[in-house]
């Protein structure tokens, strides 16, 4: 018996993709996570551009997490040109990242994944059942966008980020005016955690190798070394030797693997498992209140981890808003040289790595970008392969599709951001 399942268009993910599974005699013969996101050649476009253009260009990789791309690229370029950024720039970048976490996580929690957990199609339907929650969720999401706007001019592709700092200090009054909304946001974030804890998650666990950045003093987002649940800890410079992109037989997709050859998992669940200790009291308390103890191995519960991260970033943002008092130049001056540098930050959906070869003329010679979804790709397929037999053969087709889609969505895959994340249909005969 041949049973093919095809989900031609994945909904509620960022970007567009499809899933194709072929089975024979109750066995999975092929799983194809088909990304029909066209190749966009960003690394190619970057060659020959001026370094100061990079954050504007890389932002365009993804409209949902442009800040992640901007931050990783400016970090890599600052490394290359040996730029020391000021503490104030450092803080403002952390604040900007908090803003992106808020808008992106709220989007994923309420608009992309919650509909699955509540058996609805979209937030629009949730609004019909629970208008109050939805209104609050939208307000909280807006907080993130408002802060991004205050810092960067607009929330999608903000314009204020540059190598060395910011083009201009954001208006202090504008930043401070958000304080009360963020106080409300912190409380609502805690509500979200409690609400998330009550949801019914599919029973599905995998022993993942989690990989995330880690910082001794903070719950790492903007800054840190790369650590793994295997115990491996490397500096950013060593990232490419520890985590490789290689070609999988019979596929053209670049799959990320650890140097030991394992698939790994980046994203909120990885960060939560690896950096639980660095969470600030507000987040830790609410995590303990709901009994969400590490380690967690249920990918669906990434939603809970996300919700706790929202508490964390609101908490951090409040502190940074309160202490915001910019002095001096908003950016560092520096000399250009032939060099190379890399940078890592944590995008809302996982670790992101950039490396640039630059010239004394300021032009980019080579660019390499490893986005989170590409790194999770191998793990996603493994998880799908594991889930498929559980759902495909004893459930109605539609329900099975939904279950597989849900698993995929819980990863918060950002397909448009997968710069060279591509798998082509490869028929076996």
């Amino acid at each position: 018996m041949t049973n093919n399942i095809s989900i031609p268009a994945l909904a509620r993910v960022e970007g567009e993709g499809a899933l194709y599974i072929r089975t024979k005699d109750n066995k999975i013969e092929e799983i194809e996570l088909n990304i029909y996101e066209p190749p966009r050649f960003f690394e190619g476009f970057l060659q020959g551009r001026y370094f100061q253009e990079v954050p504007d260009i890389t932002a365009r990789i993804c409209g949902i997490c442009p800040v992640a791309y901007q931050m990783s690229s400016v970090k890599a370029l600052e490394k290359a040109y040996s730029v020391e950024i000021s503490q104030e720039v450092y803080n403002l970048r952390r604040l900007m990242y908090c803003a992106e976490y808020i808008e992106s996580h709220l989007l994923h929690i309420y608009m992309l994944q919650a509909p699955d957990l509540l058996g609805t199609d979209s937030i629009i339907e949730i609004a019909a059942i629970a208008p109050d929650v939805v209104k609050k969720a939208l307000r909280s999401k807006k907080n993130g966008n408002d802060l991004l706007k205050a810092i960067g001019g607009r929330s999608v592709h903000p314009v204020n980020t540059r190598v060395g700092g910011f083009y201009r200090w954001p208006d202090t009054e504008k930043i401070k005016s958000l304080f009360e909304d963020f106080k409300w946001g912190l409380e609502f974030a805690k509500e979200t955690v409690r609400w998330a804890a009550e949801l019914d998650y599919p029973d599905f666990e995998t022993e993942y190798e989690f990989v995330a950045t880690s910082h001794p003093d903070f719950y790492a987002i903007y800054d840190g070394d790369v650590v793994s649940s295997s115990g491996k800890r490397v500096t950013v410079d060593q990232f490419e030797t520890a985590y490789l992109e290689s070609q999988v037989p019979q596929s053209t997709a670049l799959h990320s693997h650890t140097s030991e050859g394992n698939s790994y998992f980046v994203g909120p669940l990885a960060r939560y498992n690896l950096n639980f200790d660095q969470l600030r009291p507000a987040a830790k308390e609410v995590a303990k209140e709901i009994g969400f103890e590490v380690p967690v191995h249920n990918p669906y519960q990434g939603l809970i981890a996300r919700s706790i991260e929202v508490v964390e970033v609101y908490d951090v943002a409040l502190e940074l808003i309160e202490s915001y008092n910019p002095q001096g130049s908003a950016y560092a001056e520096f000399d250009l040289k032939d060099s190379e540098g890399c940078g890592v930050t944590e995008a809302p959906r996982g670790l992101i790595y950039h490396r640039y070869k630059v010239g004394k003329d300021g032009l980019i010679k080579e660019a390499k970008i490893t986005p989170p979804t590409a790194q999770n790709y191998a793990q996603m397929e493994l998880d799908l392969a594991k889930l498929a037999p559980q759902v495909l053969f004893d459930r109605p087709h539609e329900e099975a599709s939904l279950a597989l889609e849900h698993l995929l969505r819980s990863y918060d895959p950002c397909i448009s951001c997968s710069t060279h994340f591509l798998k082509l249909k490869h028929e076996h005969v």
Partner: protein
Amino acid sequence: MRKPRIAVHKFSSCDGCQLGILNLEDELLDLVGAVEIAYFLEATSKIQPGPYDVSLVEGSVSTPHELKRIKDIRKESGMLITIGTCATAGGIQALRNFTEPGQLAESVYDHPDYLDYLDLATPVSQHVKVDLEIWGCPVNKYQLLEAIIALLQQRKPNLPSHSVCLDCKRNSTVCVMVARGIPCVGPVTRTGCGALCPANGRGCYGCFGPAPQADLDAMIPLLNAVEEYPGQTVHLLRNFAGYAPDFRKAVDVMLEESSKK
């Protein structure tokens, strides 16, 4: 009156323009009350077949599959609106149009031969009739909202087309070109962003595309005179709206002239 059925389609893009709809936090619930969202993959897994009263199209056409899809969408849409600079002018993908075919793929992919894409990433209007174009990388979500409201009110949307300069002045933003000698393409760029870059102390980089009747012949010598690095003028114009005809032709002429020298 029946609610208009709206579809949102994605082509080669970053998702940022359709995200503009989800980012209308204050208006979203009223909006979905006024229209029927019939197809919007990023927002809902409810997928309804066409025909649609309005299709909002994000992204440029860059693969054979997209080429077929845009024609299908046109057939099942009453009105087709391109949202954002990708759909309207090719967007960042169209930077590949300025390179030799295949060159980029080789530099990025190990097996470029497996890629299935068109040599050119092109605006939607190159393939099908477009009823309304909304510019911006990303679109201004309020322009998007205005377009939808205008649709509900059966009128033309208010989408001003003057240059960014006018908005800088209305915002009391100081001209970075005059006061600081920073290259800025605002004088030839379509308004819509709210003149963000000069407000942030930097020059406009033209993400809303050329203003109608933009005078690039007059602009280019001025930009050349204040370049911060050689070739900046080309970079500024060959950017997210670089494939828009006015910018494209201006750069072509410029490069041709400099190659003569």
